[in-house]
C-alpha cells in the first residue's frame, strides 16, 4: 500500500528556542483514518504546519504520497487539504466566495469550481447560507465552511486540526458521518482532536505525541487491547444489598447507591461471565456505561509513562 505521509526525523525549533519537535518519525498509509493525539503544546499543530508549509522545519524530511514537500511543492500541495484549528477565512466575504476563491487558487476553471462549491456546501449543510457573509455564521457553520473549502479541490489527503472543537454533539455526529463517508471514498484523513471518543469512533490507527516526541504509534485495536481493566457503571432494577459481592476473582464491585454500582473487570474476564453471575445473584441490570472513555484511560496512562 502507498504511504500517504512519511515523516523522518522531523525537528522544529522556534526562534524563541522552543524545541517543538524532537526527531519525529511517522508513516501514515493511504486510505487511513489516522488520529494524532497529544496534550496542548505537544507538537501536533507544528507537524500539521510543516505538512502544510506554514511552518519551516528545522531538520528532517517530509513526503506526501512519495513526493518530498521541499522539492515537489506544487504536486504535494495539490494532494493536500487542511482544516486548521482557528478560523482563517475573511470574515467579510460571502460563504460562496470563500469556497470559489479557494478553488481559484488551485487553478480550477469556473464551471468546475461552481459545481464543486455547490456539492460541498450542500453536503455540509451550508448551501442555504451561500450568500451570507461568513461572520454571520455560527461556530459550527464556520468549521463546516473550512471543511468545504479544504475539500473543493478534492485532495487525496485531508488534515483536520480539531475540527469539532466547540461544536454541539448533534453536529459533531453528522460531521463524523461525513468524514467517514469521504474516508470510505478513498481520502486519507489525519485528525487531531481533544475528544478521545471521536478518535476512538473514527480512526483505525493512532499516534500519541508528547513534548515533541511520538510516544505511541499503533492501531486503535492494538492500543485498546492494552487495557488491563475496564470500569463500568451499572444501573440495577432491584435494590443492591449492603456488602454486595459479585463472587468473581477478576471483577470487583463498589456500591455507589441503592441502584448503581461501579464494576471493574480485568482483561482476562469476559463481560458474559459477569452477566451470568448477575443472573445467578438475581440482580437485574437496567443499563451499563463506561466510567471513562477507554482511549482516554489509555491516553492518560501513556502520558504518565505507565
Amino acid at each position, binding site marked *: 500500500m502507498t504511504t500517504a505521509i512519511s515523516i523522518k526525523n522531523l525537528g522544529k525549533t*522556534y*526562534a524563541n528556542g522552543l524545541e517543538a519537535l524532537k526527531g519525529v518519525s511517522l508513516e501514515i498509509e493511504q486510505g487511513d483514518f489516522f488520529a494524532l493525539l497529544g496534550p496542548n503544546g505537544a507538537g501536533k499543530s507544528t507537524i500539521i*504546519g510543516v505538512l*502544510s*508549509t*506554514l*511552518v*519551516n522545519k528545522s531538520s528532517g524530511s517530509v513526503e506526501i504520497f512519495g513526493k518530498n514537500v521541499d522539492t515537489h*511543492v*506544487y*504536486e504535494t*500541495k*495539490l494532494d*493536500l487539504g*487542511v482544516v*486548521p484549528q*482557528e*478560523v*482563517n*477565512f*475573511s*470574515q*467579510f466575504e460571502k460563504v460562496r*466566495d470563500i469556497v470559489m*476563491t*479557494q478553488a*481559484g*487558487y*488551485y*487553478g*480550477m*476553471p469556473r464551471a468546475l469550481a461552481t459545481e464543486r462549491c455547490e456539492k460541498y456546501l450542500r453536503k455540509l449543510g451550508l448551501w442555504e447560507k451561500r450568500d451570507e457573509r461568513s461572520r454571520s455564521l455560527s461556530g459550527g457553520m464556520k468549521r463546516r465552511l473550512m471543511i468545504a*473549502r479544504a475539500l473543493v479541490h478534492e485532495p487525496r489527503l485531508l488534515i483536520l486540526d480539531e475540527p469539532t472543537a466547540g461544536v454541539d454533539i448533534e453536529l459533531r455526529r453528522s460531521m463524523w458521518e461525513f468524514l467517514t463517508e469521504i474516508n470510505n471514498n478513498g481520502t486519507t484523513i489525519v485528525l487531531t482532536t481533544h475528544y478521545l471518543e471521536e478518535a476512538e469512533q473514527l480512526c483505525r490507527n493512532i499516534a500519541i505525541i508528547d513534548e515533541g516526541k511520538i510516544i505511541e504509534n499503533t492501531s486503535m485495536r492494538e492500543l485498546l487491547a492494552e487495557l488491563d481493566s475496564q470500569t463500568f457503571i451499572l444501573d440495577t432494577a432491584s435494590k443492591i444489598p449492603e456488602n454486595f459481592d459479585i463472587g468473581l476473582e477478576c471483577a470487583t464491585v463498589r456500591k455507589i447507591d441503592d441502584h448503581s454500582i461501579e464494576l471493574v473487570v480485568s482483561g482476562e474476564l469476559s463481560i458474559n461471565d459477569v452477566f451470568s453471575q448477575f443472573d445467578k445473584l438475581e440482580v437485574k441490570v437496567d443499563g451499563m456505561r463506561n466510567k471513562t472513555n477507554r482511549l482516554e484511560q489509555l491516553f492518560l496512562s501513556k502520558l504518565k509513562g505507565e
Partner: protein
Amino acid sequence: MFTNHKFIAFETIVVREIRRFTRIWLQTLVPPAMMIGLYFVIFGNLVGRRIGEMGGFQYMEFIVPGLIMMSVIQNSYSNVVSSFFSHKFQHSIEEVLVSPVPNYVILCGFVVGGMARGLGVGAIVTAMSLFFTDLSIQNIPITIAVVLLTSIVFSLAGFINALFANSFDDISIVPTFVLTPLIYLGGVFYSVDLLPPFWKFISALNPIFYMVNTFRYGILGSSDVNVVWSFSILLLFIVILYCCCIFLLRRGTGLRT
C-alpha cells in the same frame, strides 16, 4: 502548476482584491478623491489665483499632474499594504499559502490589485480636475507608461511593508513618516527651479520627484527632469523591489514560522 492554472489563480487574487476595495468604496475611493478635490479648490483655485504662473503654466494646470500622481502613489501603496496585512491579521493569507500558487503569482495578484485601486482613484481625480482646468495630454505613451510604472513601484513597496508589519500601527508608519513627506517634497506643488542649489540637490535624491515630473512632462510637455533618466530609475526600483518581495516570500518572512 500549469500556465492556465496559474492564470486562474492570478485572476482569482486580482478579482478578490478589486472586490475588496470596491466593497468598501466609502473608505477606499471616496476619501482620497475628496481630499484631492479640496486641494483643487484651496490650492489650485483660491491660493493658485494669487500665485499666478509656475514653471510657465497657470498654477492650477501645474499642480494637476502632481495631484493625480499623488493619489496614484498613495492608493497603490495603501491598497496592497492594508489588504495584505488584513489577510495576515485574519490568517486568511494561509488559504493561498497552503495552495500551490507560486510566490510570483501571489505577488503579481496583489500588485495588480494595488494598481487597480491606484489607477481607479487616479482616474476619478483626473475626471474631477476637468471641472477646474482644461487637461490636454501632450504625450500619451509617456503619461500612461509613467503612471503604470509608478503604480507598480508603490504596490511592490506596500507589499514589503505588509510582510514586515505586525500591527496596524506598522502599516501607517511608512505612509505617514516616509511617503507623505517624499510626495510633498517631490515637486507636486512647486517647481524645483524655485529652490536654492542645496535643496535642488536634495530633491534630486527623491525618487518621487522624478515620477511626478515625468508625469507632468507627459501632460504639460514640460519637466524639471530628464525623462529617460526617470524611466531608468523607475525600472531599477521595480526590479529591486520585485526581487526583495520574492526573496522575502520564499523565506517566509512575516508569513511562516
